[in-house]
């Protein structure tokens, strides 16, 4: 299909670059559904008659496939251009839902693993990295803001998918508030119909992105922006480094460690958000002042903090520099974790404020990462390098819950703990952030021996 080729998606003269962020957001808002799977988890447990773990594996496969496909397919995404890779992402993400629906209707869990987990997970990984390098090429003057806008969409996708899925499940099941109680759980049949609906809907919205994404013509610059007059920083290279060479550098692995540690620390709160706030405000009589509805409000607040942090902090990094902003994420994050651990139980407002800011740093670290990679390695294969960096996310997705659950299991049973029991977990998170802070200070410009020779870059431009 020639219309998907990079050469067919070069923007004509006069193209408005502000058409690109909605195209990128169309993809990220759809794949962000991955954060909203808890809506139908109980329904799937009831439908298949299996444990939480067996159902949880569906989502674990998807997240592992996200990291693997981003890392493995990153170079292909860079070579093929955003239109073809976004089309492949839309096809995999949509097909994943359809195969998953078949698994639900026929009560075959392996088909759900294959569909949503494996096939959908590939769509997640390719979709996540597809528009990122293109955005940075369109906004060389504000790369942090540009990637922040798209990656904010991944956080925002859950905010849309969660209430929309609840409403659709109620519609398919004929929910009646007068007869169905607060503990109503959707039927498997309605989850199957939800998967069918989401598969078709997400494919259609992502196709808007496919049809509207453009790459800038070679040599294009924003009007009035002169790269030679841009603020010079030793941490922002004008050279280019290939993905194969980038992973040989110390700086890449330091950025990997920084992202891994910051995400692991953020997951500490995200994983435990609802029980954590109830435990922090548990009285001496064993009853919590926070009920399930209020705890759900806290989880919603964290989602908004996660989304807003992606845009706000990533945009701020254009002004204060990528290295400095990561030191804020890690240094101030560690400080806020200490405040949360020792004083969080004294005031609901303080507890919520600290948690929201920490989660905004978690989101910010995701959104700032592509611009940091561009600063260190140039735009030549930044999408592919970003794909390899996302393995840090997969690793943190495994390490974070293991650390948190392991430490909390040693403290007591769920529903009986208080703020004091969270000290080991929270102080462990402080330790991780301090290590990350030190790693961040060690990041240096990439050695010239890793730079691509000019002739190789020139021939690559001719070939693309």
């Amino acid at each position: 299909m020639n219309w998907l080729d990079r050469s067919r998606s070069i923007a004509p003269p006069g193209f408005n670059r502000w058409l690109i962020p909605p195209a990128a957001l169309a993809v990220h808002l759809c794949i962000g559904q991955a954060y909203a799977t808890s809506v139908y988890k109980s329904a799937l447990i009831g439908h298949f008659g299996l444990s939480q773990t067996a159902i949880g594996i569906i989502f674990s496969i998807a997240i592992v496939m996200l990291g693997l496909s981003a890392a493995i397919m990153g170079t292909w995404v860079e070579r093929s251009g955003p239109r073809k890779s976004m089309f492949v992402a839309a096809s995999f993400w949509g097909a994943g839902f359809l195969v998953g629906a078949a698994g639900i209707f026929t009560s075959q869990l392996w088909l759900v693993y294959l569909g949503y987990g494996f096939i959908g997970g590939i769509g997640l990984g390719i979709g996540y990295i597809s528009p990122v390098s293109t955005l940075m090429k369109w906004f060389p003057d504000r790369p942090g803001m540009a990637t922040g806008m798209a990656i904010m969409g991944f956080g925002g996708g859950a905010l849309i998918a969660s209430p929309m899925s609840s409403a659709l499940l109620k519609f398919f099941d004929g929910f009646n508030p007068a007869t169905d109680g607060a503990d109503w759980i959707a039927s498997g049949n309605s989850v199957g119909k939800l998967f069918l609906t989401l598969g078709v809907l997400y494919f259609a919205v992502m196709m808007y992105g496919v049809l509207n994404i453009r790459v800038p013509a070679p040599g294009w610059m924003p009007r009035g922006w002169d790269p030679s007059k841009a603020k010079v920083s030793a941490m922002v290279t004008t050279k280019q480094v290939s993905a194969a060479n980038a992973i040989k550098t110390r700086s890449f692995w330091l950025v990997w460690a920084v992202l891994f540690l910051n995400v692991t620390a953020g997951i500490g709160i995200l994983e435990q958000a609802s029980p954590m706030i109830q435990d922090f405000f548990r009285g001496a009589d064993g009853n919590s002042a926070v009920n399930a509805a209020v705890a759900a409000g806290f989880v919603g607040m964290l989602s908004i903090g996660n989304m807003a942090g992606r845009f706000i902090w990533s945009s701020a990094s254009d002004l204060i520099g990528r290295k400095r902003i990561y030191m804020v994420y890690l240094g101030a994050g560690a400080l806020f974790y200490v405040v949360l651990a020792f004083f969080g139980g004294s005031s609901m407002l303080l507890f919520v404020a600290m948690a929201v800011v920490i989660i905004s740093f978690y989101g910010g670290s995701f959104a700032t990462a592509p611009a940091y990679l561009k600063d260190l390695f140039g735009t030549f294969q930044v999408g592919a390098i970003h794909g390899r960096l996302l393995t840090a996310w997969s690793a943190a997705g495994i390490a974070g819950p293991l650390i948190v659950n392991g430490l909390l299991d040693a403290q007591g049973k769920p529903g009986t703990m208080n703020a004091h029991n969270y000290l080991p977990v929270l102080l462990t998170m402080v330790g991780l952030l301090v290590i990350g802070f030190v790693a961040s200070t060690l990041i240096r410009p990439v050695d010239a021996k890793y730079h691509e020779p000019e002739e190789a870059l020139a021939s690559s431009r001719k070939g693309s």
Partner: protein
Amino acid sequence: MPAQPHDAIDPAGPAGVPVDPSTGRLVFGWLLVGIPLAYGVITTLSRVGQLFQ
């Protein structure tokens, strides 16, 4: 003088008013992503309100 980037203005607008052909696509694109996002934020904020009641 050859056309320059960002100069693509359609002179055929009503009453001779220049119309940037990308304006409609811009509005549609941002509404397509903005309306669902606003829906998500508003429904989430309505849950958040219970935190401070």
